[in-house]
């Protein structure tokens, strides 16, 4: 006997003023905030808020492979574990990882692998742990984006960052960055990612329906949005290195002061 408070979908997804229910324009992203170095124990980590998504990513590696037989003599391996907290969704998720989580883990791993130089790390592994503590649509894209940042935070050599976003169709109109409600009530959903070193699509899924023209439109819209997400990632990293720079400056200053005293 479930309590009758439904995770209900609205009948229309646009307001009378033509804006989306959360006030956004069609090609407008939800607010995005990222931070690196949030998990002290990890080799690299990042935290992201994207709309109501709240996601941690932590990277451990290169390190010994467990279990041993998974190690490859000629290259490192990448393992991504995407998980959702039980309370991150409307109906409590069961604690054990489900098929969906395994599938998304694989999707993200496939998306990130091209940016790494795994051939430089034979016999080792990189583990990327992603924990969604609040989900609001587009978690696989948000997770990919924050995972790339955690890898960069770990100082692992990368060809480039990767950025991800979902475009979709709601009430017949093509929009960028579907919110949770738009995802569920909408007609089509195309999560995708770009690896910036070659500007190619590295994650691509689609469910819904589109003709070839719409497909073009989807991809063009995504590319534009991905550029903006990339900028945010770069700024977070830049400010991290500035901070580090400032700290080293301080140290130098302090030393000089000590020298003087």
């Amino acid at each position, binding site marked *: 006997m479930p309590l009758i408070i439904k995770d209900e979908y609205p009948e229309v997804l646009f307001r009378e003023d033509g804006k989306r229910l959360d006030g956004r324009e069609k090609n407008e992203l939800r607010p995005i905030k990222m931070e690196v170095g949030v998990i002290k124990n990890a080799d690299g980590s990042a935290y992201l808020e994207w709309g109501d998504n709240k996601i941690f990513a932590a990277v451990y590696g290169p390190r010994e492979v467990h279990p041993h037989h998974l190690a490859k003599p000629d290259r490192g391996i990448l393992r991504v574990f995407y998980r959702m907290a039980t309370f991150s969704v409307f109906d409590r998720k069961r604690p054990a990882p489900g098929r969906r989580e395994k599938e998304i883990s694989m999707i993200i791993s496939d998306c990130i692998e091209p940016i790494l130089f795994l051939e430089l790390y034979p016999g080792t592994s990189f583990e990327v742990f992603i924990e969604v503590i609040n989900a609001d649509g587009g978690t696989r894209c948000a997770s990919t984006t924050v995972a790339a940042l955690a890898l960069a935070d770990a100082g692992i050599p990368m060809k480039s960052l990767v950025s991800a976003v979902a475009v979709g169709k709601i009430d017949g109109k093509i929009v960028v960055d579907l919110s949770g409600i738009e995802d569920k009530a909408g007609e089509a959903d195309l999560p995708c990612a770009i690896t910036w070193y070659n500007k190619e699509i590295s994650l691509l899924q689609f469910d819904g329906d589109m003709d*070839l023209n719409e497909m073009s439109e989807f991809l063009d819209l995504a590319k534009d949005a991905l550029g903006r997400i990339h900028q945010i990632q770069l700024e977070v990293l830049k400010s991290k290195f500035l901070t580090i720079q400032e700290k080293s400056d301080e140290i130098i200053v302090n030393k000089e002061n000590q020298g003087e005293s």
Partner: protein
Amino acid sequence: MMDVKRVISKIEKNYIINNLRKQERIDGRGLWDYRKFKIQSDIISSAEGSADVSLGETRIITGLKYEVGEPFPDLPNEGVCTVMAELLPLASPLFERGPPDEQSIELARVVDRGIRHADCVQTKKLCIKENEAVYILFVDMYVINYDGNLIDAGGISALTTLISAHIPEGKIENGNLEWTGKYFTGESIVNELPIVITYGKIGDIVFLDPNLPEELVCDGRISISVTEDKITSIQKSGAATFSIDELKMLGDKSLEIGKKLRKDLNLWQYKAKYK
């Protein structure tokens, strides 16, 4: 991608790639050719629908079973159709015993999404009585021999199985579920026939329907489901990346190939004769 790439030697890998560069494939096909499909339906007497589909030497046997259960509270008049896949260790030394691994989850999920999102299965037809009783269909795929491209073979296998369905018709009579003596068939459940089409990519070469050696050496794959004139589902897998132009080209190709395949296979011929 699978963890077994190492089983292919470097020499063999170079041989496959060099041939592909010349637009030649080790089994003699062109880049955009499918291997031969062989389809049989209604081969399992204990199932309410079944298919035995071969794509080259890849072979998948699929069966349909049903249960009657309560609908989900938010979809009180819709039945459910679930897809499962087992990569039997009988089918290849590459498959291991144990719980479903990533590859079998991927096969099941891609086939499932192809069916779920393309207006293929009419889940509202699977309702016996609103809020009380609906059919839950299980489309279970068993890989009998593995020679690459499980997804396209699985897609056709699942579709044929659904088309061949013959499910006892129940009704609620005085609070009890009883059999009317009639069946309802794939014809009334299945609407669209979404065809899933998979391409491999090695370096910058893309090609249709990878066989096993190609699958083992390729960088990645992309599977595109199409109806008559729409793309309904896409899944990229493996570490390949695709340029936007490539994707548009593949969208176009898929509609063309889908059209041809839909005609050649003529899947409606497999509909059940039960009444």
